[in-house]
């Protein structure tokens, strides 16, 4: 295998995108088949590259140290493999789910383009190249959201674009600072201590990374997109691809580019962001009445764990964060897909209208249940493992508050999934939806695959931890530090795990209490918390998007624009249009008045002029 092979994961999906885009809308089956086949090819590429560690391709691009520089090593090959896996699952799923979509042509085009850009971003070994692919994803995200075809789709798409743009521009600034201070753009040559400007660079680049991952406060487009975008998009981008990319970059920032010290200010900032994201998003998720929206808030909340884990800067925490990333991608993808499956059959995702679908859609229900338990951190699923690692990491930093926040998150995660599962698949059969049946195999299959993976990664956690995660951390730990996290990862018998299990029990209690209080209506199980006096107000405000930084930011932008326009631009124009003219006209008017046509007047000027000239000349001659 030569270095040019590295181009394939980028070029092939891009070419596939173009071909799929060019197939006329009339032709039906060919497109789906081609798409699945292409994704299989990509998956193959992923596997084959995974087996090839350490390849790199450097060619001249823009000059000035901006090279077209691709590098494959253990971390990127791992992410590449994960990405291609998800691409395959999504294609499989979309083959049925999206086949009647009016703009299906564009859909596949964007999906494969996104895959190409993501692969490029992962492989890039030059910051500019990274930004190129990274930011290009904004366009595919934008385009895919508009495919939701809802009236508000475009608004949400723009929202994602602007938020993403903001984050990416921050990253660009950070990269600029890094470039200015190190003089190179090659990623594997950079390793600096985050002091002074470098610290600013760290924060700016971090914003780019967590913005892509969808952490607070850059998450607000995701819940909107849950309703406005196609559900496969939700599984595709926010649930899997963007998390993989964002956390990948965050990990690289903290591990490679900067020397992040345990408990340093920057680490604490990261942890605060992580903890806040966990808690706040989960509280929002808890009260949602829409299946997809609920999931979307969890997609945000879980990012918190990853950031928290990485922010600990302790090997186990970092490993937990990264492991959580891949785990989350799996189960959240599975969850969205199962929500999509429900929507596919019933046409709705409102919790209120659904209920008791487990009998008609058993496989979907099974997949959902596994994934939901995984996300809630139930032993022995993968979510449990990664969360435990994060808890350990957080405790080791000496700031137990972050662990507590994570546990609080765990409580309400489980509570909200109990509510969701209860109201969708279990409980009484709802009368609002007609009788239905299980979705087609291409829809169910990905869900089940993901569920199976969740179990596998949980039970055989050694496998992923040793194959994927450990190599990443090698070289970043001090000599002698053990890298075998499996030892206490799956152990139920330590205090940390005990607290986690306690949390699950509390969550169960909360759900049952709420369910009882709300007249055995599962979808109202969160109402007692929703209606708590202090919280109620906050919830209302956040429903009104008061806490949405984007909405406030847009208001600010509009206000600022008005100020700039009214108080700078218009006055300048007024100066030219009115003031200059008026001054001119005033002088002209005075002079014209003076020319009154009277001969004596004119003669007086002449004689007066003579006198003045004589006087001046005589004065000057003195």
């Amino acid at each position, binding site marked *: 295998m030569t270095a040019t092979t590295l181009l394939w994961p980028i070029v092939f999906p891009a070419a596939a995108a173009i071909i799929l885009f060019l197939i006329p809308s009339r032709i039906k089956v060919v497109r789906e088949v081609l798409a699945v086949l292409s994704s299989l090819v990509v998956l193959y590429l992923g596997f084959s590259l995974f087996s090839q560690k350490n390849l790199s391709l450097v060619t001249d691009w*823009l000059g000035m140290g901006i090279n077209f520089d691709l590098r494959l090593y253990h971390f990127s090959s791992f992410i590449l493999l994960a990405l291609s896996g998800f691409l395959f699952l999504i294609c499989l799923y979309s083959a049925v789910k999206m086949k009647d979509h009016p703009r299906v042509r564009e859909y596949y085009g964007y999906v494969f383009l996104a895959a190409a850009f993501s692969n490029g971003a992962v492989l890039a070994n030059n910051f*500019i190249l990274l930004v190129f692919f990274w930011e290009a994803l904004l366009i595919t995200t934008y385009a895919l959201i508009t495919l939701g075809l809802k009236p508000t789709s475009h608004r949400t798409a723009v929202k994602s674009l602007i938020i993403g743009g903001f984050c990416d*521009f*921050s990253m*660009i*600034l950070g990269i600029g600072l890094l470039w200015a201070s190190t003089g190179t753009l090659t990623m594997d040559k950079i390793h600096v201590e985050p002091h002074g400007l470098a610290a600013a660079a760290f924060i700016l680049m971090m914003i780019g990374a967590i913005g892509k991952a969808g952490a607070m406060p850059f998450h607000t487009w995701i819940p909107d997109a849950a309703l406005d975008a196609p559900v496969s998009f939700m599984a595709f981008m926010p649930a899997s691809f963007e998390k993989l990319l964002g956390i990948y970059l965050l990990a690289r920032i903290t591990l490679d580019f900067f020397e992040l010290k345990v408990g340093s200010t920057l680490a604490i900032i990261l942890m605060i962001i992580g903890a806040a994201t966990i808690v706040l998003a989960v509280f929002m998720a808890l009260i949602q009445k829409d299946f997809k929206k609920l999931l979307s808030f969890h997609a945000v909340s879980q990012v918190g764990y990853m950031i928290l884990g990485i922010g600990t800067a302790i090997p186990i925490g970092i490993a937990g964060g990264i492991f959580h990333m891949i785990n989350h991608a799996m189960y959240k993808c599975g969850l969205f897909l199962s929500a999509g499956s429900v929507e596919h059959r019933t046409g709705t995702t409102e919790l209120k209208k659904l209920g008791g679908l487990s009998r008609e859609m058993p496989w979907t229900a099974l997949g959902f249940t596994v994934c939901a338990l995984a996300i809630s951190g139930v032993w022995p699923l993968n979510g449990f493992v990664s969360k435990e690692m994060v808890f350990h990491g957080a405790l080791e930093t000496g700031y137990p508050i972050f662990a507590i926040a994570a546990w609080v998150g765990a409580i309400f995660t489980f509570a909200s999934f109990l509510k969701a599962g209860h109201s969708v698949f279990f409980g009484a059969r709802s009368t609002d939806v007609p009788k239905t049946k299980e979705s087609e195999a291409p829809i169910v299959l990905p869900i089940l695959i993901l569920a199976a993976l969740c179990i596998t990664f949980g039970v055989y956690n050694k496998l992923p931890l040793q194959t994927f995660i450990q190599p990443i951390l090698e070289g970043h730990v001090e000599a002698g530090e053990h890298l075998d996290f499996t030892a206490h990862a799956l152990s139920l018998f330590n205090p940390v795990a005990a607290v986690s299990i306690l949390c699950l029990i509390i969550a169960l209690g909360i759900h049952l209490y709420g369910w009882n209080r709300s007249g055995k209506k599962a979808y109202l199980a969160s109402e007692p918390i929703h209606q708590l006096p202090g919280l109620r107000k906050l919830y209302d405000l956040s429903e009104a998007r008061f806490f949405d930084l984007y909405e406030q930011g847009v208001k600010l932008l509009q206000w600022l624009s*008005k100020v*700039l326009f009214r108080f700078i631009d218009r006055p300048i124009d007024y100066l*030219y249009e009115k003031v200059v003219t008026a001054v001119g006209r005033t002088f002209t008017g005075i002079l014209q008045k003076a020319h009154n046509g009277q001969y004596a007047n004119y003669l007086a000027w002449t004689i007066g002029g003579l006198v003045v000239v004589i006087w001046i000349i005589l004065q000057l001659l003195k």
Partner: protein
Amino acid sequence: MKVEVITLLTIFIPILGSLLVPLAGAISPKLRSFWSVLLGGITACLPLTLIPQALKGGEIIWSKSLALGLDFILVIDPLSIFMSIVSSFIGFLIIIYSLGYIHHEDNQNEYYLMVILFIGSMMGLVFSASLVFMYLFWEIIAIACWRLIGFYRQKDYILKADKAFLLTFGGAVVMLLGFIVIYEQTGTFNLVAMRGVAISGTAVLLILFGMFSKSATVPLHTWLPDAGVAPTTVTALLHAAVLVKIGVYAYARLFLYTFKIPDVWQQAIIIMAVLSSLIAAGAATVENDFKRILAYSTVSQIGYIFLGLSVATPTAISGSLLFILMHGLAKAGLFLCAGIVLHATHKRDIREMGGLIKTMPVTAISFLICAFSVIGLPPLGGFFSKLLVIMGTVQANQVWVAALALFTAVLTMFYLMRVFAMVFLGELKIAAPEKTPSMVGVVAILAVLSVLAGLFVSYPMKLVQMATTHISWWLK
């Protein structure tokens, strides 16, 4: 052919040929169209033959001595070749677009005459290495613009044309004063001979008047939004491709390639540029007139170009030069899209439009692509230029300026998406079909070029690199 001959032909074929346009028009409109396209085509092709020379680097000087030392001097170097290629090519596209856009209006003779004269003078300006002749071509362009802005002959349109002419003329004569101050210091108008001369702050200030007024930079920018009364082809030509780049080019030619300016002024220009960018972006967000928004957007983007040139790191300079190309393509595309929309709906207020994507899909997609390019999203061309400018700015330790510039980029995204949403999405208010193929075709070509320029950015970048190393010779 020798390089000098090609250059002279590039300048004088369109200038002299334009004078024959009315004659051709008197014979038949077909002949006129043919003649105009031919002239445009020749002008677009000739500079392409200079590319090998540009890639070779170095410069060729040709001069003809005239009275009082006001010599006519041409400089053929990568910078001038790059500028000439960009301007003449976009000019050519606009002539083609005009065939459809303008074909049932009055005064077509004058229109084509002025457009081609404009392009020819632009070539002259770009290749001139004498301050006086730069100014001379500068003003010929102003005359052409004035006639073109007032093309529709409405009373208030002509007022705007006069405003534009007066403001740019005013700026330019003040600039001329600056040139003369320099002449007084050095005793020559020859730019090549003056290389490396340190000039006074007064001269810089005076010259800036000219550059800022021509390139519509705050606070001398307000003529540009008003000039939107011109036919859209003209605004595209004026705003996007050529006219506003003149000031920028002059900056590169004078303040980078030739003179050394005081540091205080350099810093001041940096700040003015970024503020201009921000203010115009703000105005663009508030405006509701389609073309005015685009015009303000131009003002805003020009701020970036000035920013890149004024921070004067190689990265930023090459970013700015690339910006000239990318912004030229994308903004011309945006304006021409606007032209199609306005031509079809006869409305200018975006609040009265909506849902046009249904009736004019190609236009809408082209608009979106060009808008993304202007915003600076990859893989479109605009990404690289903006990125390099920002990077260069950071390299020059102007972190806050870079941050402000990026903030402006967010604002840009905001208002351009607003325009797109209001014009092309939502409820269909006026069902207007797309017009002639030549118009839609040109728009589509520009959109495709924006994409290609991004994907194959390394090719124009080679030229830009040559130009950058050429003009930043003092870095060695």
